């Protein structure tokens, strides 16, 4: 099933080696894997095991040293920056650990950002964001700037922004790392629910054990390579 041609993301023997003062750091070492649409995947592993680098390879934020990456069956390893930006805009959603939102934009403006760049008409943007905010429990906060939102609320706005354009894949790097446990649980609930109700594909990098518990598929990375890949 993981080799299905319609994979949300797929890699073939992908490597990422950083050169640092003449020392080579092998952050990702020959990872071959595939994530099917609708999966809820957690990349787990100790700090420095290559989780972030692998997510960045998936998201076209880092170019592989060797090997290939496909997003929705479009190979992205060697395409132009322009094309890559377009694929990120149309196919991917990102949730980062922090600095997710533009402070000068309201919650709504942040959430509809990718729709705005895609040229989605105002009425549709409005309706989609309103519905999503309702769904994930932040209705009524549309006009607040991020500075007037709690950490948990901010991360939900980031999740809303990531899923609003119905991407093939949402990449979330430690989305709960800066949250207290109640907010973490609530955010996790939101993402599980989006995965179940809308079928949004999620790939997380985390060492949050609660997130790991909810994973339908748990991939352990050790020293940049896949140590185990289990489905539940």
């Amino acid at each position, binding site marked *: 099933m993981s080799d299905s041609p319609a994979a949300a993301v797929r890699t073939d023997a992908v490597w990422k080696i950083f050169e640092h003062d003449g020392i080579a750091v092998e952050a990702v070492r020959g990872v071959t894997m595939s994530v099917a649409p609708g999966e809820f995947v957690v990349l787990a592993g100790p700090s420095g095991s290559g989780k*972030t680098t692998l997510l*960045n390879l998936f998201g076209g934020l880092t170019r592989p040293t060797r090997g290939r990456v496909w997003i929705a069956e479009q190979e992205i390893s060697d395409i132009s920056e322009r094309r890559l930006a377009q694929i990120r805009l149309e196919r991917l959603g990102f949730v980062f650990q922090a*600095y997710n939102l533009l402070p*000068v*934009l309201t919650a709504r403006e942040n959430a509809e950002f990718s729709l705005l760049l895609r040229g989605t008409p105002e009425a549709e943007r409005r309706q989609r964001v309103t519905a999503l905010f309702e769904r994930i429990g932040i209705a009524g906060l549309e006009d607040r700037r991020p500075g007037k939102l709690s950490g948990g609320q901010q991360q939900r706005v980031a999740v809303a922004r990531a899923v609003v354009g119905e991407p093939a894949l949402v990449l979330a790097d430690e989305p709960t790392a800066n949250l207290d446990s109640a907010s973490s649980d609530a955010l996790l609930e939101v993402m599980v629910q989006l995965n179940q109700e809308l079928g949004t594909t999620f790939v997380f990098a985390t060492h949050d054990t609660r997130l790991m518990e909810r994973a339908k598929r748990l991939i352990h990375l050790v020293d940049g390579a896949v140590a185990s890949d289990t489905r539940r």
Partner: protein
Amino acid sequence: MPASPWWRIGWRNLGRNSRRTVLTATGLAVGYWSVVVITGMADGLVADMVRTATGILSGQVQAHAPEYLPDRTLYETIGGAEGTDVPALLHAVEAEPGVLGAAPRVYAGGLVSSGATTVGVLLLGVDPAREDSVSRLAAALVEGRLPTPGARELLIGRELARQLDVAPGGELVVVAPAADGSLGNDLFRVSGLYATGIAELDAGTAVGPLAAIQELLALAPGRVHEIAIRIGDPWAAPGMADSLTRRLSAAGAGPIAVRPWTTFRPELVDYANLSSGSMWIVVLIVFAMAVFGVANTLLMTTFERRREFALLLALGATPGGIVRAVLAEAVALGVISILLGVAITVPVLVWWHHDPIDLSRLFGDFTMAGALVRPVLRTDYPLSMCFYAAGALLLTALLAALYPAYRATRVPPADTLAGR
């Protein structure tokens, strides 16, 4: 229209560090202020100088027979040998809006002798009643009184009086080639002395009543060489000369050449150009400084926001979008600066126009380009500079934003978001 987010982001970014924004905008506004006000002062000073230089004698516009200049031939009177209806001509000139005064004149070369000494002079015949509305000769009177209309009296420069060793009340023999081919020859009495500070006037000119000088030169009362004209705004002189040419031809004054001071006092034009040329150097310096100020501010802000630019790039924004956001911020900064600049400039322009800074207590009067100038800085309204400076300011802000904008697009998203 699916509103582009870049303007919104750029504009709102400006409000984030309002102290820095206010400081930068104030800097630019002060730059705008200094450029416009200095230009206004320079324009005012030059206009004043032109007014003074042309106001002593020549006037700002002059009408002659077409062939009169440059030789100032005695026979080339307005309307030819028949002369013209001088009162009607003056009336027509004064009917032109903007004309403040007009005076008829005759000129001739001659000799004046006090018995012991003889000196070659320019004889100038004026209508004493009208001359005051054009020139400030009367104001330069330092001794005695003005000539009585029609009387054989002369007003001469103090330096000339010294050379001739005469005082008011003294007699002079005046000899001049007349229009009928004879040698005009008359006895004149010195009515008074003037001092303008201009050597050729003070040492080489004798002024008498129009009728008396015409009689000496065998010129009929209808024959004059020049109508000297005073107007309010010296910069309007060329246009005024054109419309007077049309008006006087239409009034049937015959062939007539009307010239502005820019033609008959070219040295004043050179001076005005020099002054506006140096203005542009000031403009350049001010805006070059502004470029670095704005560039510095924007470099700091874009550096502080590199995480946000990384986020935008990660989300799929193009470098072009990032550039637009930074440029939008610069344009917004420029517009705010212009508004602030205009707000602090206009009141000062109005104030210093109506209540000019008087430096004469510091410096006294001084002579510039052969003209007596009072150091009173009456600012003019440099309208075109107001617009040029605003355009330059906007351009400055945009230019200064180019490099920071480019830098913002070069932020590596993955490393920057990881805090590397």
